[in-house]
Protein backbone atom coordinates (compact mmCIF):
# COMPACT_ATOMS: atom_id res chain seq x y z
CA UNK A 1 0.00 0.00 0.00
CA UNK A 2 2.81 2.40 0.93
CA UNK A 3 4.46 1.70 -2.41
CA UNK A 4 1.26 2.56 -4.27
CA UNK A 5 0.69 5.80 -2.39
CA UNK A 6 4.32 6.77 -2.96
CA UNK A 7 3.94 6.19 -6.69
CA UNK A 8 0.68 8.16 -6.78
CA UNK A 9 2.39 11.11 -5.10
CA UNK A 10 5.40 10.89 -7.39
CA UNK A 11 3.24 10.80 -10.50
CA UNK A 12 1.12 13.75 -9.39
CA UNK A 13 4.28 15.74 -8.68
CA UNK A 14 5.94 14.77 -11.92
CA UNK A 15 3.08 15.89 -14.14
CA UNK A 16 3.18 19.66 -13.53
CA UNK A 17 6.96 19.66 -13.28
CA UNK A 18 7.43 17.94 -16.59
CA UNK A 19 4.67 19.99 -18.16
CA UNK A 20 6.01 23.31 -16.82
CA UNK A 21 2.57 23.82 -15.18
CA UNK A 22 1.31 26.11 -17.92
CA UNK A 23 -2.35 25.03 -17.74
CA UNK A 24 -4.93 25.48 -14.99
CA UNK A 25 -6.12 23.21 -12.25
CA UNK A 26 -9.62 22.44 -11.03
CA UNK A 27 -10.15 20.52 -7.82
CA UNK A 28 -13.30 19.11 -6.31
CA UNK A 29 -15.45 16.27 -5.11
CA UNK A 30 -16.57 13.14 -6.95
CA UNK A 31 -19.65 11.00 -6.45
CA UNK A 32 -20.50 7.88 -8.42
CA UNK A 33 -23.74 6.05 -7.71
CA UNK A 34 -23.32 2.67 -9.38
CA UNK A 35 -24.92 -0.72 -9.89
CA UNK A 36 -22.17 -3.30 -9.66
CA UNK A 37 -21.91 -7.00 -10.36
CA UNK A 38 -19.33 -9.53 -11.55
CA UNK A 39 -18.50 -10.41 -15.14
CA UNK A 40 -17.35 -13.98 -15.77
CA UNK A 41 -15.28 -15.44 -18.58
CA UNK A 42 -17.38 -18.34 -19.80
CA UNK A 43 -15.15 -19.73 -22.49
CA UNK A 44 -17.20 -18.70 -25.51
CA UNK A 45 -16.09 -15.15 -26.18
CA UNK A 46 -16.08 -11.63 -24.70
CA UNK A 47 -19.34 -10.66 -26.40
CA UNK A 48 -21.11 -13.67 -24.87
CA UNK A 49 -19.67 -12.76 -21.45
CA UNK A 50 -21.03 -9.22 -21.75
CA UNK A 51 -24.44 -10.44 -22.91
CA UNK A 52 -24.60 -12.75 -19.91
CA UNK A 53 -23.85 -9.97 -17.40
CA UNK A 54 -27.53 -9.23 -17.17
CA UNK A 55 -28.31 -12.92 -16.85
CA UNK A 56 -29.95 -14.00 -13.66
CA UNK A 57 -27.36 -12.50 -11.34
CA UNK A 58 -27.83 -10.15 -8.52
CA UNK A 59 -26.49 -6.62 -8.80
CA UNK A 60 -25.63 -4.29 -5.96
CA UNK A 61 -26.43 -0.60 -5.71
CA UNK A 62 -23.16 0.86 -4.42
CA UNK A 63 -21.34 4.18 -4.43
CA UNK A 64 -17.88 5.57 -4.96
CA UNK A 65 -16.90 8.94 -3.57
CA UNK A 66 -13.79 11.00 -3.12
CA UNK A 67 -11.78 13.92 -4.41
CA UNK A 68 -10.15 14.71 -7.71
CA UNK A 69 -8.04 17.16 -9.63
CA UNK A 70 -8.23 18.11 -13.29
CA UNK A 71 -5.40 19.74 -15.16
CA UNK A 72 -6.64 21.71 -18.16
CA UNK A 73 -3.56 21.29 -20.25
CA UNK A 74 -4.82 22.75 -23.53
CA UNK A 75 -7.90 24.41 -24.95
CA UNK A 76 -9.69 21.08 -25.46
CA UNK A 77 -7.63 18.55 -23.57
CA UNK A 78 -7.64 17.77 -19.89
CA UNK A 79 -5.92 15.29 -17.63
CA UNK A 80 -7.14 14.22 -14.25
CA UNK A 81 -6.69 12.02 -11.24
CA UNK A 82 -9.22 11.04 -8.58
CA UNK A 83 -8.83 9.37 -5.23
CA UNK A 84 -11.97 7.42 -4.43
CA UNK A 85 -13.36 5.06 -1.85
CA UNK A 86 -15.50 2.66 -3.82
CA UNK A 87 -17.94 0.01 -2.70
CA UNK A 88 -18.49 -2.79 -5.19
CA UNK A 89 -19.78 -6.31 -5.21
CA UNK A 90 -22.20 -8.86 -6.59
CA UNK A 91 -23.09 -12.46 -5.81
CA UNK A 92 -26.57 -13.47 -4.71
CA UNK A 93 -29.34 -11.64 -2.91
CA UNK A 94 -29.11 -14.11 -0.01
CA UNK A 95 -25.30 -14.29 -0.15
CA UNK A 96 -23.86 -10.90 -0.96
CA UNK A 97 -20.24 -10.36 -1.87
CA UNK A 98 -19.12 -6.94 -0.61
CA UNK A 99 -15.84 -5.48 -1.80
CA UNK A 100 -14.40 -2.11 -0.90
CA UNK A 101 -11.58 -0.39 -2.74
CA UNK A 102 -9.41 2.68 -2.74
CA UNK A 103 -9.29 3.68 -6.38
CA UNK A 104 -7.07 5.91 -8.42
CA UNK A 105 -8.47 6.63 -11.88
CA UNK A 106 -6.18 8.61 -14.17
CA UNK A 107 -8.03 10.36 -16.94
CA UNK A 108 -7.31 11.90 -20.27
CA UNK A 109 -10.21 13.71 -21.86
CA UNK A 110 -11.51 16.00 -24.54
CA UNK A 111 -13.89 18.88 -23.84
CA UNK A 112 -15.58 21.34 -26.15
CA UNK A 113 -14.79 25.08 -26.05
CA UNK A 114 -15.15 26.36 -22.50
CA UNK A 115 -17.17 29.45 -23.54
CA UNK A 116 -20.30 27.42 -24.13
CA UNK A 117 -22.90 27.02 -21.39
CA UNK A 118 -22.89 23.25 -21.69
CA UNK A 119 -19.41 21.91 -22.31
CA UNK A 120 -19.36 18.48 -23.92
CA UNK A 121 -16.82 16.20 -22.26
CA UNK A 122 -15.52 12.74 -23.04
CA UNK A 123 -12.80 10.97 -21.07
CA UNK A 124 -11.19 7.63 -20.50
CA UNK A 125 -8.09 6.32 -18.86
CA UNK A 126 -6.81 3.70 -16.55
CA UNK A 127 -7.84 2.90 -13.01
CA UNK A 128 -5.93 1.19 -10.22
CA UNK A 129 -7.90 -0.33 -7.37
CA UNK A 130 -6.57 -1.45 -3.99
CA UNK A 131 -8.79 -3.99 -2.22
CA UNK A 132 -9.44 -2.81 1.33
CA UNK A 133 -11.90 -5.49 2.41
CA UNK A 134 -13.78 -8.42 0.89
CA UNK A 135 -16.55 -10.22 2.69
CA UNK A 136 -19.41 -12.54 1.92
CA UNK A 137 -22.48 -11.63 3.95
CA UNK A 138 -25.09 -14.32 4.50
CA UNK A 139 -28.80 -13.82 5.01
CA UNK A 140 -28.47 -14.67 8.71
CA UNK A 141 -25.96 -11.84 9.17
CA UNK A 142 -22.83 -14.03 9.32
CA UNK A 143 -19.80 -12.72 7.46
CA UNK A 144 -16.86 -14.50 5.88
CA UNK A 145 -13.57 -12.85 4.99
CA UNK A 146 -12.63 -13.77 1.41
CA UNK A 147 -9.80 -11.28 0.94
CA UNK A 148 -7.06 -13.96 0.89
CA UNK A 149 -8.64 -15.46 -2.26
CA UNK A 150 -8.84 -12.17 -4.14
CA UNK A 151 -6.47 -10.03 -6.11
CA UNK A 152 -5.35 -7.08 -3.97
CA UNK A 153 -4.50 -4.72 -6.82
CA UNK A 154 -6.78 -4.62 -9.85
CA UNK A 155 -6.73 -2.36 -12.82
CA UNK A 156 -9.34 -1.53 -15.35
CA UNK A 157 -10.68 0.93 -17.86
CA UNK A 158 -13.20 3.69 -17.04
CA UNK A 159 -15.07 5.57 -19.72
CA UNK A 160 -17.24 8.64 -19.25
CA UNK A 161 -19.14 10.98 -21.52
CA UNK A 162 -21.38 13.93 -20.66
CA UNK A 163 -21.52 17.64 -19.97
CA UNK A 164 -19.94 20.24 -17.72
CA UNK A 165 -21.66 23.49 -16.72
CA UNK A 166 -20.98 26.42 -14.45
CA UNK A 167 -23.04 27.22 -11.37
CA UNK A 168 -22.89 30.01 -8.80
CA UNK A 169 -20.15 31.71 -10.72
CA UNK A 170 -17.27 29.80 -9.23
CA UNK A 171 -18.16 26.13 -9.54
CA UNK A 172 -18.34 23.61 -12.33
CA UNK A 173 -20.64 20.61 -12.18
CA UNK A 174 -19.83 17.72 -14.48
CA UNK A 175 -22.37 14.99 -15.06
CA UNK A 176 -21.07 12.06 -17.04
CA UNK A 177 -22.48 8.73 -18.09
CA UNK A 178 -19.95 6.31 -16.63
CA UNK A 179 -18.89 2.74 -17.37
CA UNK A 180 -16.11 0.68 -15.85
CA UNK A 181 -14.78 -2.84 -16.08
CA UNK A 182 -11.76 -4.56 -14.55
CA UNK A 183 -9.14 -5.98 -16.86
CA UNK A 184 -7.45 -8.45 -14.52
CA UNK A 185 -9.26 -11.30 -12.79
CA UNK A 186 -10.36 -10.88 -9.19
CA UNK A 187 -9.45 -14.47 -8.45
CA UNK A 188 -5.95 -14.61 -6.98
CA UNK A 189 -5.64 -18.24 -5.95
CA UNK A 190 -7.10 -19.68 -9.14
CA UNK A 191 -5.81 -17.79 -12.15
CA UNK A 192 -7.81 -19.83 -14.67
CA UNK A 193 -11.06 -18.40 -13.29
CA UNK A 194 -11.84 -15.15 -15.09
CA UNK A 195 -14.04 -12.93 -12.90
CA UNK A 196 -14.11 -9.14 -12.99
CA UNK A 197 -15.73 -6.22 -11.23
CA UNK A 198 -18.24 -4.60 -13.52
CA UNK A 199 -20.22 -1.39 -13.13
CA UNK A 200 -23.35 -0.99 -15.18
CA UNK A 201 -23.55 2.26 -17.10
CA UNK A 202 -24.24 4.90 -14.44
CA UNK A 203 -23.44 8.45 -13.44
CA UNK A 204 -20.26 10.20 -12.39
CA UNK A 205 -20.95 13.56 -10.76
CA UNK A 206 -18.20 16.09 -10.05
CA UNK A 207 -18.24 19.50 -8.41
CA UNK A 208 -15.05 21.46 -9.10
CA UNK A 209 -13.61 24.83 -8.42
CA UNK A 210 -10.61 26.37 -10.19
CA UNK A 211 -7.63 26.02 -7.87
CA UNK A 212 -6.49 29.62 -8.34
CA UNK A 213 -9.89 30.90 -7.11
CA UNK A 214 -9.77 28.57 -4.16
CA UNK A 215 -6.29 29.83 -3.22
CA UNK A 216 -7.30 33.47 -3.65
CA UNK A 217 -10.13 33.03 -1.13
CA UNK A 218 -7.69 31.75 1.41
Amino acid at each position, binding site marked *: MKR*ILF*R*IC*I*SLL*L*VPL*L*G*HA*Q*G*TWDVGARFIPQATT*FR*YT*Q*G*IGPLYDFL*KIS*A*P*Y*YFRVRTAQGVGATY*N*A*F*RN*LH*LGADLLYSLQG*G*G*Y*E*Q*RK*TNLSYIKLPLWIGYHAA*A*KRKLIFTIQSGIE*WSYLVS*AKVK*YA*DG*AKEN*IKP*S*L*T*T*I*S*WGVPFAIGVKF*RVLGAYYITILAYLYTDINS*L*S*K*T*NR*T*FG*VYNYSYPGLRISIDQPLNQLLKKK
Partner: protein
Amino acid sequence: MNNHRIIPGRRSLVCRYAFSFCIAFSGLSCDQKDPAPATLKEAIDHVATPYVALGADVGIIIGVMKEGQKSVYSYGEKEIGSRESITAQSVLEIASLTKVYTAVALADMHLRKELNLDDPIENYLPSSVHVPMFNNKKITLRHLANHTSGFPRFASNADKKAYNEYKGYTEQMMYEFINGYTLTRAPGSEFEYSAVGYGLLGQILSLKTQSDYETMITGRVLSPLGMKHTTISFTPEQMKHLVPGHNGNKQVESWSKDMQNIVQGTGALISTMDDQLIYLEANLGLINSSLDEALSLSHELTFQHDGKYTNGIGLGWNHFTLNGQHVIWKNGGNGGYTSFMGFNPDHKTGVVVLTNSSLNPEIFATDMGIEILKLLQVL
Protein backbone atom coordinates in the same frame (compact mmCIF):
# COMPACT_ATOMS: atom_id res chain seq x y z
CA MET B 1 -14.15 32.73 -18.02
CA ASN B 2 -11.66 30.91 -20.11
CA ASN B 3 -8.78 29.42 -18.25
CA HIS B 4 -7.50 27.46 -21.17
CA ARG B 5 -4.51 28.58 -23.11
CA ILE B 6 -2.87 27.37 -26.23
CA ILE B 7 0.49 26.14 -25.13
CA PRO B 8 3.36 25.70 -27.53
CA GLY B 9 4.75 22.19 -27.75
CA ARG B 10 1.55 20.43 -26.71
CA ARG B 11 2.66 17.09 -28.14
CA SER B 12 5.74 17.30 -26.02
CA LEU B 13 3.64 17.94 -22.93
CA VAL B 14 1.38 14.98 -23.58
CA CYS B 15 4.46 12.84 -23.99
CA ARG B 16 5.75 14.09 -20.65
CA TYR B 17 2.46 13.15 -18.99
CA ALA B 18 2.53 9.68 -20.42
CA PHE B 19 6.18 9.33 -19.48
CA SER B 20 5.65 10.46 -15.89
CA PHE B 21 2.80 8.03 -15.29
CA CYS B 22 4.75 5.22 -16.90
CA ILE B 23 7.69 5.89 -14.59
CA ALA B 24 5.48 6.14 -11.55
CA PHE B 25 3.61 2.93 -12.19
CA SER B 26 6.20 0.82 -13.93
CA GLY B 27 6.59 -2.43 -12.08
CA LEU B 28 3.32 -1.90 -10.21
CA SER B 29 1.92 -5.22 -11.23
CA CYS B 30 -0.71 -7.31 -9.58
CA ASP B 31 -0.22 -9.30 -6.42
CA GLN B 32 3.02 -10.94 -5.58
CA LYS B 33 2.71 -14.70 -5.71
CA ASP B 34 1.69 -16.37 -2.49
CA PRO B 35 3.62 -19.41 -1.34
CA ALA B 36 2.47 -22.62 -3.04
CA PRO B 37 -0.17 -24.50 -1.07
CA ALA B 38 1.35 -27.08 1.20
CA THR B 39 -1.52 -29.55 1.46
CA LEU B 40 -4.07 -30.98 -0.95
CA LYS B 41 -6.89 -29.38 1.01
CA GLU B 42 -5.27 -25.95 0.85
CA ALA B 43 -4.64 -26.35 -2.87
CA ILE B 44 -8.23 -27.37 -3.59
CA ASP B 45 -9.49 -24.49 -1.42
CA HIS B 46 -7.45 -22.15 -3.61
CA VAL B 47 -9.09 -23.53 -6.75
CA ALA B 48 -12.70 -23.75 -5.59
CA THR B 49 -13.17 -20.90 -3.10
CA PRO B 50 -13.19 -18.03 -5.65
CA TYR B 51 -16.02 -19.67 -7.61
CA VAL B 52 -18.26 -19.64 -4.55
CA ALA B 53 -17.00 -16.39 -3.01
CA LEU B 54 -17.54 -14.46 -6.24
CA GLY B 55 -21.00 -15.81 -7.03
CA ALA B 56 -20.28 -18.14 -9.96
CA ASP B 57 -21.43 -21.27 -8.13
CA VAL B 58 -23.99 -21.76 -5.40
CA GLY B 59 -22.35 -24.98 -4.23
CA ILE B 60 -19.52 -27.28 -5.25
CA ILE B 61 -18.51 -30.74 -4.07
CA ILE B 62 -15.14 -32.15 -5.04
CA GLY B 63 -13.99 -35.75 -4.59
CA VAL B 64 -10.36 -36.72 -5.02
CA MET B 65 -8.57 -40.09 -5.32
CA LYS B 66 -4.88 -40.01 -4.49
CA GLU B 67 -2.65 -42.83 -3.33
CA GLY B 68 -5.71 -45.04 -2.90
CA GLN B 69 -7.36 -42.56 -0.52
CA LYS B 70 -10.62 -40.76 -1.15
CA SER B 71 -11.20 -37.25 0.15
CA VAL B 72 -14.21 -34.98 -0.28
CA TYR B 73 -14.36 -31.17 -0.08
CA SER B 74 -17.53 -29.10 -0.07
CA TYR B 75 -17.94 -25.38 -0.76
CA GLY B 76 -20.95 -23.10 -0.74
CA GLU B 77 -24.49 -24.22 -0.17
CA LYS B 78 -27.21 -26.63 -1.28
CA GLU B 79 -29.55 -23.68 -1.77
CA ILE B 80 -28.60 -20.00 -1.74
CA GLY B 81 -28.84 -18.72 1.80
CA SER B 82 -29.43 -22.17 3.36
CA ARG B 83 -25.92 -22.40 4.92
CA GLU B 84 -26.17 -26.18 4.36
CA SER B 85 -23.29 -27.79 2.51
CA ILE B 86 -23.59 -30.33 -0.26
CA THR B 87 -22.52 -33.69 1.15
CA ALA B 88 -21.16 -36.87 -0.42
CA GLN B 89 -24.68 -38.31 -0.04
CA SER B 90 -26.44 -35.37 -1.72
CA VAL B 91 -28.05 -36.17 -5.07
CA LEU B 92 -27.25 -34.03 -8.13
CA GLU B 93 -27.69 -34.43 -11.88
CA ILE B 94 -24.45 -35.60 -13.45
CA ALA B 95 -25.64 -34.47 -16.90
CA SER B 96 -23.36 -35.58 -19.75
CA LEU B 97 -21.18 -37.69 -17.47
CA THR B 98 -24.04 -40.14 -18.20
CA LYS B 99 -22.45 -40.65 -21.62
CA VAL B 100 -19.47 -42.55 -20.19
CA TYR B 101 -21.87 -44.93 -18.44
CA THR B 102 -23.70 -45.50 -21.73
CA ALA B 103 -20.32 -46.08 -23.41
CA VAL B 104 -19.29 -48.69 -20.83
CA ALA B 105 -22.58 -50.54 -21.27
CA LEU B 106 -21.82 -50.60 -25.01
CA ALA B 107 -18.26 -51.84 -24.40
CA ASP B 108 -19.58 -54.57 -22.09
CA MET B 109 -22.07 -55.79 -24.72
CA HIS B 110 -19.30 -55.75 -27.31
CA LEU B 111 -17.01 -57.86 -25.10
CA ARG B 112 -19.87 -60.27 -24.42
CA LYS B 113 -20.37 -60.48 -28.21
CA GLU B 114 -23.99 -59.37 -27.91
CA LEU B 115 -23.16 -56.79 -30.55
CA ASN B 116 -20.09 -55.36 -32.23
CA LEU B 117 -18.80 -51.81 -31.98
CA ASP B 118 -18.52 -51.72 -35.76
CA ASP B 119 -22.06 -52.90 -36.45
CA PRO B 120 -24.17 -50.42 -38.44
CA ILE B 121 -26.72 -48.82 -36.13
CA GLU B 122 -29.52 -49.57 -38.59
CA ASN B 123 -29.26 -53.23 -37.49
CA TYR B 124 -30.66 -52.28 -34.09
CA LEU B 125 -33.32 -49.73 -35.00
CA PRO B 126 -36.90 -50.34 -36.17
CA SER B 127 -37.22 -50.96 -39.91
CA SER B 128 -39.18 -47.71 -40.25
CA VAL B 129 -35.99 -45.77 -39.41
CA HIS B 130 -33.80 -45.01 -42.42
CA VAL B 131 -30.34 -44.17 -41.16
CA PRO B 132 -28.49 -41.81 -43.53
CA MET B 133 -25.25 -42.89 -45.23
CA PHE B 134 -22.48 -40.91 -46.90
CA ASN B 135 -21.07 -42.49 -50.09
CA ASN B 136 -22.44 -45.83 -48.86
CA LYS B 137 -20.49 -45.54 -45.61
CA LYS B 138 -22.74 -46.48 -42.71
CA ILE B 139 -22.91 -45.07 -39.17
CA THR B 140 -21.74 -47.64 -36.62
CA LEU B 141 -22.14 -47.95 -32.86
CA ARG B 142 -18.49 -46.85 -32.47
CA HIS B 143 -19.25 -43.66 -34.42
CA LEU B 144 -22.06 -42.82 -32.01
CA ALA B 145 -19.80 -43.50 -29.01
CA ASN B 146 -16.89 -41.34 -30.19
CA HIS B 147 -18.97 -38.49 -31.64
CA THR B 148 -17.92 -39.07 -35.26
CA SER B 149 -21.31 -40.20 -36.59
CA GLY B 150 -21.94 -36.94 -38.44
CA PHE B 151 -25.07 -36.25 -36.39
CA PRO B 152 -25.24 -32.71 -34.96
CA ARG B 153 -25.13 -31.70 -31.31
CA PHE B 154 -28.92 -31.29 -31.07
CA ALA B 155 -31.72 -32.45 -33.33
CA SER B 156 -33.15 -29.73 -35.54
CA ASN B 157 -36.70 -30.66 -34.55
CA ALA B 158 -36.06 -30.06 -30.83
CA ASP B 159 -37.40 -26.83 -29.36
CA LYS B 160 -34.23 -24.74 -29.29
CA LYS B 161 -35.93 -21.86 -27.50
CA ALA B 162 -37.05 -24.08 -24.64
CA TYR B 163 -35.17 -23.96 -21.33
CA ASN B 164 -34.92 -27.76 -21.54
CA GLU B 165 -34.59 -28.91 -25.15
CA TYR B 166 -35.05 -32.52 -24.11
CA LYS B 167 -38.45 -31.92 -22.52
CA GLY B 168 -41.14 -33.53 -24.62
CA TYR B 169 -38.64 -34.91 -27.10
CA THR B 170 -40.06 -38.30 -28.07
CA GLU B 171 -38.83 -41.44 -29.78
CA GLN B 172 -41.01 -40.58 -32.77
CA MET B 173 -39.43 -37.13 -33.04
CA MET B 174 -35.93 -38.63 -32.97
CA TYR B 175 -36.82 -41.17 -35.67
CA GLU B 176 -38.37 -38.41 -37.80
CA PHE B 177 -35.18 -36.39 -37.41
CA ILE B 178 -33.00 -39.34 -38.49
CA ASN B 179 -35.24 -40.13 -41.46
CA GLY B 180 -34.94 -36.56 -42.66
CA TYR B 181 -31.25 -36.00 -41.93
CA THR B 182 -28.59 -35.84 -44.66
CA LEU B 183 -24.99 -36.49 -43.68
CA THR B 184 -22.53 -33.87 -44.91
CA ARG B 185 -19.43 -36.04 -44.44
CA ALA B 186 -18.46 -39.67 -44.05
CA PRO B 187 -19.10 -41.22 -40.64
CA GLY B 188 -15.82 -41.64 -38.75
CA SER B 189 -14.14 -38.74 -40.53
CA GLU B 190 -14.70 -35.82 -38.15
CA PHE B 191 -15.45 -35.18 -34.48
CA GLU B 192 -18.66 -33.31 -33.65
CA TYR B 193 -20.03 -33.61 -30.11
CA SER B 194 -23.49 -35.09 -30.45
CA ALA B 195 -26.20 -35.41 -27.83
CA VAL B 196 -28.34 -36.88 -30.62
CA GLY B 197 -25.78 -39.67 -31.08
CA TYR B 198 -25.69 -40.59 -27.40
CA GLY B 199 -29.47 -40.45 -27.02
CA LEU B 200 -29.72 -42.83 -29.92
CA LEU B 201 -26.99 -45.08 -28.50
CA GLY B 202 -28.85 -45.34 -25.18
CA GLN B 203 -32.03 -46.18 -27.10
CA ILE B 204 -30.25 -48.87 -29.14
CA LEU B 205 -28.80 -50.51 -26.01
CA SER B 206 -32.18 -50.54 -24.30
CA LEU B 207 -33.85 -51.97 -27.44
CA LYS B 208 -31.13 -54.62 -27.59
CA THR B 209 -31.76 -55.65 -23.99
CA GLN B 210 -35.53 -55.30 -24.43
CA SER B 211 -35.78 -52.95 -21.48
CA ASP B 212 -35.75 -49.27 -20.77
CA TYR B 213 -32.51 -47.28 -20.45
CA GLU B 214 -32.59 -47.16 -16.66
CA THR B 215 -33.05 -50.93 -16.31
CA MET B 216 -30.32 -51.54 -18.86
CA ILE B 217 -27.75 -49.17 -17.30
CA THR B 218 -28.55 -50.38 -13.77
CA GLY B 219 -28.13 -54.04 -14.74
CA ARG B 220 -25.05 -53.56 -16.90
CA VAL B 221 -23.07 -50.91 -15.03
CA LEU B 222 -24.49 -49.56 -11.78
CA SER B 223 -25.33 -52.81 -9.95
CA PRO B 224 -22.06 -54.59 -10.81
CA LEU B 225 -20.21 -51.62 -9.28
CA GLY B 226 -22.49 -51.33 -6.26
CA MET B 227 -23.65 -47.83 -7.15
CA LYS B 228 -26.97 -47.80 -5.30
CA HIS B 229 -27.64 -44.08 -5.40
CA THR B 230 -27.32 -43.53 -9.13
CA THR B 231 -30.66 -43.61 -10.91
CA ILE B 232 -32.83 -41.96 -13.47
CA SER B 233 -35.99 -42.31 -11.39
CA PHE B 234 -36.56 -39.59 -8.85
CA THR B 235 -37.51 -42.04 -6.09
CA PRO B 236 -38.60 -40.73 -2.67
CA GLU B 237 -35.16 -41.69 -1.33
CA GLN B 238 -33.39 -39.74 -4.10
CA MET B 239 -35.75 -36.77 -3.67
CA LYS B 240 -34.90 -36.64 0.02
CA HIS B 241 -31.27 -35.92 -0.84
CA LEU B 242 -31.79 -34.00 -4.07
CA VAL B 243 -29.95 -30.65 -4.25
CA PRO B 244 -31.82 -28.11 -6.36
CA GLY B 245 -30.08 -26.79 -9.46
CA HIS B 246 -29.46 -23.09 -10.03
CA ASN B 247 -28.88 -20.86 -13.01
CA GLY B 248 -27.38 -17.67 -11.65
CA ASN B 249 -29.44 -16.80 -8.59
CA LYS B 250 -32.53 -18.67 -9.78
CA GLN B 251 -33.50 -22.18 -8.73
CA VAL B 252 -34.38 -24.10 -11.87
CA GLU B 253 -36.36 -27.18 -12.85
CA SER B 254 -34.61 -30.50 -13.29
CA TRP B 255 -33.85 -31.57 -16.85
CA SER B 256 -33.50 -35.26 -16.04
CA LYS B 257 -37.08 -35.59 -14.83
CA ASP B 258 -38.38 -34.63 -18.25
CA MET B 259 -36.05 -36.74 -20.40
CA GLN B 260 -37.67 -39.67 -22.14
CA ASN B 261 -35.92 -42.95 -22.91
CA ILE B 262 -34.77 -41.75 -26.34
CA VAL B 263 -32.50 -39.07 -24.78
CA GLN B 264 -31.69 -40.53 -21.37
CA GLY B 265 -28.40 -42.06 -22.54
CA THR B 266 -27.02 -38.59 -23.19
CA GLY B 267 -27.49 -37.03 -19.77
CA ALA B 268 -30.25 -38.22 -17.45
CA LEU B 269 -28.46 -39.89 -14.52
CA ILE B 270 -28.69 -38.43 -11.04
CA SER B 271 -26.12 -39.51 -8.48
CA THR B 272 -24.09 -38.80 -5.36
CA MET B 273 -20.41 -37.98 -4.86
CA ASP B 274 -20.03 -41.30 -3.01
CA ASP B 275 -21.22 -43.18 -6.11
CA GLN B 276 -19.15 -41.10 -8.51
CA LEU B 277 -16.05 -41.89 -6.46
CA ILE B 278 -16.89 -45.60 -6.85
CA TYR B 279 -16.99 -45.08 -10.60
CA LEU B 280 -13.71 -43.17 -10.48
CA GLU B 281 -12.10 -45.98 -8.48
CA ALA B 282 -13.40 -48.53 -11.00
CA ASN B 283 -11.96 -46.54 -13.89
CA LEU B 284 -8.62 -46.31 -12.09
CA GLY B 285 -8.65 -50.09 -11.63
CA LEU B 286 -8.66 -49.72 -7.84
CA ILE B 287 -11.67 -52.00 -7.42
CA ASN B 288 -12.33 -55.18 -9.31
CA SER B 289 -15.61 -55.95 -11.00
CA SER B 290 -17.05 -57.73 -14.01
CA LEU B 291 -16.68 -54.43 -15.87
CA ASP B 292 -12.89 -54.17 -15.70
CA GLU B 293 -12.36 -55.03 -19.38
CA ALA B 294 -15.26 -52.89 -20.53
CA LEU B 295 -13.94 -49.90 -18.61
CA SER B 296 -10.49 -50.39 -20.14
CA LEU B 297 -12.00 -50.69 -23.62
CA SER B 298 -13.92 -47.44 -23.11
CA HIS B 299 -10.64 -45.66 -22.36
CA GLU B 300 -8.90 -46.76 -25.57
CA LEU B 301 -8.29 -43.94 -28.02
CA THR B 302 -10.60 -44.30 -31.02
CA PHE B 303 -10.23 -40.97 -32.79
CA GLN B 304 -7.70 -38.14 -32.69
CA HIS B 305 -8.82 -34.54 -32.74
CA ASP B 306 -7.67 -31.36 -31.06
CA GLY B 307 -9.80 -29.12 -28.88
CA LYS B 308 -9.70 -27.40 -25.53
CA TYR B 309 -8.10 -29.91 -23.12
CA THR B 310 -8.46 -32.57 -25.81
CA ASN B 311 -6.16 -34.54 -28.11
CA GLY B 312 -8.59 -37.34 -28.88
CA ILE B 313 -11.49 -39.45 -27.74
CA GLY B 314 -12.12 -43.02 -26.62
CA LEU B 315 -15.66 -44.29 -26.10
CA GLY B 316 -17.12 -41.13 -24.60
CA TRP B 317 -13.93 -40.23 -22.69
CA ASN B 318 -11.71 -37.33 -23.79
CA HIS B 319 -7.95 -37.86 -23.88
CA PHE B 320 -5.51 -35.09 -23.11
CA THR B 321 -1.82 -34.66 -22.44
CA LEU B 322 -1.64 -32.41 -19.37
CA ASN B 323 1.88 -31.21 -18.53
CA GLY B 324 3.27 -34.27 -20.28
CA GLN B 325 0.96 -36.72 -18.50
CA HIS B 326 -1.94 -38.64 -20.01
CA VAL B 327 -5.32 -37.76 -18.51
CA ILE B 328 -8.80 -38.98 -19.40
CA TRP B 329 -11.85 -36.91 -18.60
CA LYS B 330 -15.51 -36.15 -19.28
CA ASN B 331 -17.69 -33.24 -18.25
CA GLY B 332 -21.36 -32.38 -18.24
CA GLY B 333 -23.86 -29.58 -17.93
CA ASN B 334 -27.64 -29.61 -17.61
CA GLY B 335 -29.78 -26.65 -16.63
CA GLY B 336 -28.82 -26.12 -13.00
CA TYR B 337 -25.90 -28.56 -12.71
CA THR B 338 -22.37 -29.09 -14.01
CA SER B 339 -20.06 -32.06 -13.59
CA PHE B 340 -16.55 -33.30 -14.30
CA MET B 341 -14.66 -36.54 -13.83
CA GLY B 342 -11.01 -36.86 -14.81
CA PHE B 343 -8.13 -39.15 -13.95
CA ASN B 344 -4.55 -40.03 -14.61
CA PRO B 345 -4.56 -43.80 -15.31
CA ASP B 346 -0.81 -44.13 -14.84
CA HIS B 347 -0.58 -42.37 -11.47
CA LYS B 348 -3.97 -43.65 -10.24
CA THR B 349 -5.15 -40.17 -9.29
CA GLY B 350 -8.44 -38.57 -10.19
CA VAL B 351 -11.08 -36.00 -9.37
CA VAL B 352 -14.85 -35.59 -9.52
CA VAL B 353 -16.47 -32.14 -9.45
CA LEU B 354 -20.24 -31.76 -9.07
CA THR B 355 -21.99 -28.39 -8.79
CA ASN B 356 -25.57 -27.26 -8.37
CA SER B 357 -25.02 -24.30 -10.70
CA SER B 358 -24.90 -23.75 -14.42
CA LEU B 359 -24.05 -20.23 -15.52
CA ASN B 360 -22.68 -21.79 -18.64
CA PRO B 361 -22.64 -25.56 -19.00
CA GLU B 362 -19.39 -27.29 -18.32
CA ILE B 363 -16.72 -24.63 -18.40
CA PHE B 364 -16.42 -23.78 -14.70
CA ALA B 365 -16.52 -27.42 -13.52
CA THR B 366 -14.14 -28.46 -16.31
CA ASP B 367 -11.63 -25.70 -15.53
CA MET B 368 -11.80 -26.64 -11.85
CA GLY B 369 -11.33 -30.33 -12.61
CA ILE B 370 -8.35 -29.74 -14.90
CA GLU B 371 -6.74 -27.42 -12.32
CA ILE B 372 -7.10 -30.11 -9.65
CA LEU B 373 -5.61 -32.73 -11.98
CA LYS B 374 -2.63 -30.38 -12.36
CA LEU B 375 -2.34 -30.11 -8.58
CA LEU B 376 -2.44 -33.89 -8.23
CA GLN B 377 0.62 -34.05 -10.50
CA VAL B 378 2.71 -32.00 -8.09
CA LEU B 379 1.33 -32.55 -4.58
